[in-house]
């Protein structure tokens, strides 16, 4: 935990963070039991300041509250926030771990086919097959490389019209890889463009290879500082300088 993040426990307990920082800090809290303990204590302290301001409430407030309570359904118990966040994160990782494993298995199967072909055929065809295999390996190399970073984290978002996008990011290496699966084909003459969003601004992270079947490598990008979200929009072929449509997928850049 960086000392800078830990300093925010006070501001957080006093609700003195802006919306963006608050969400970032909460993501951090879910993974930092020490901070959670401190935040709980500082909140209890802040509550004392609240109690010190107590006044006698008017009777009409009690009547209104009781009347509203009588017609208000209670919510089911929320799973403990910390546990829920951890579980969600684990589920997300597992989901993509499974998919990545499947991709790796696919790669192995492709290799086996290629090799099988290689044993049957010879000469120029074998060279072509080896090139194909090398291409497949090259496609997934950035992902494998990035996954080895100690702070590599993944997060994914679901498309408004189906499909998913997944980002694996490492802030220490200032690198991220974006994979998409099952997004609808963009209209003719259009493409998906990825954006890094933060501080009220969007920066292009590049054009998203439309069909993974074409053998295009996953989109790699850098310049993660200041970004908190990843979004995908449909843009005219060649991309735009700024997003011109509403994102079809929008999710948190892993912190």
């Amino acid at each position, binding site marked *: 935990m960086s000392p800078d993040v830990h300093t925010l426990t006070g501001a957080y307990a006093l609700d003195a963070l802006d919306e963006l920082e608050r969400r970032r800090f909460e993501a951090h809290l879910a993974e930092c039991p020490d901070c959670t303990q401190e935040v709980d204590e500082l909140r209890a302290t802040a509550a004392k300041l609240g109690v010190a*301001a107590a006044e006698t409430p008017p009777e009409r407030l009690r009547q209104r509250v009781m009347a509203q*309570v009588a017609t208000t359904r209670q919510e089911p118990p929320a799973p403990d926030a910390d546990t829920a966040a951890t579980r969600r994160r684990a589920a997300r990782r597992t989901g993509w771990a499974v998919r990545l494993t499947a991709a790796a298995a696919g790669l192995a199967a492709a290799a086996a086919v290629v090799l099988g072909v290689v044993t049957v055929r010879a000469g120029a065809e074998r060279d072509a097959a080896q090139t194909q295999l090398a291409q497949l390996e090259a496609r997934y190399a950035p992902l494998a490389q990035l996954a080895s970073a100690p702070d590599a984290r993944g997060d994914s978002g679901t498309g408004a019209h189906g499909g998913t996008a997944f980002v694996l990011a490492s802030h220490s290496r200032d690198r991220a890889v974006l994979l998409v699966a099952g997004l609808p084909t963009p209209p003719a003459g259009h493409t998906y463009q990825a954006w890094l969003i933060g501080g009220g601004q969007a920066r292009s992270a590049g054009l998203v290879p439309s069909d993974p079947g074409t053998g295009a490598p996953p989109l790699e990008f850098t310049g993660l500082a200041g970004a908190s979200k990843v979004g995908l929009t449909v843009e005219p072929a060649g991309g735009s300088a700024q997003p011109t449509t509403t994102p079809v997928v929008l999710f948190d850049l892993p912190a």
Partner: protein
Amino acid sequence: MHDSVWPPRRTGQPQRPEEPVPDTAEQLMGLVAKGDESAFERLYPLVAGAVLGMVRRVVRDPGQSEEVAQEVLVELWRTAPSYNPAKGSALTWALTMAHRRAVDRVRSAQAATQREARVGAESVRREFDEVAEAVATNLEREQVRRCLATLTELQRESVVLAYYGGRTYTEVATVLRAPLGTVKTRLRDGLIRLRDCLGVSR
């Protein structure tokens, strides 16, 4: 089954068929979590005064403050099944919710009117003086007042502006003309000193 001899019965006390009436806010929250409206009615006087008083410090407008307090108290009922006593007292849970709502209310109003540009040093003094005055009327307040006095001036002003003023630390830094990093740190070490002085655990 034979008559149980334990627990021993105290003589001269009327026997009550039901369990003793729980009276701590945490015990009441346990009942409220099961949908017990009468338990909520008993919980209400234990939290409503602090909720309304604190919200009024932040929101200031009496009508809006009552609205926010009402929202918070109904939210306390609505979300009672999620209350976890291990995370803190029922009063802390209620006031955390209340502060958050109060701050949301003033910040959305602020965004609408761009009022924040006019925050000046004068209003800091006023907020602090009012608090210092208001917190001097009973034992609990006296303790908070005494502990606030053990903070350095910058710690105290930062904590007071953030909590009672509903300011972000960025606004606090602007108002106090102090570096952002310093205010962040003062909010934390100020609260920690306050925590130790008040003997708060969770």
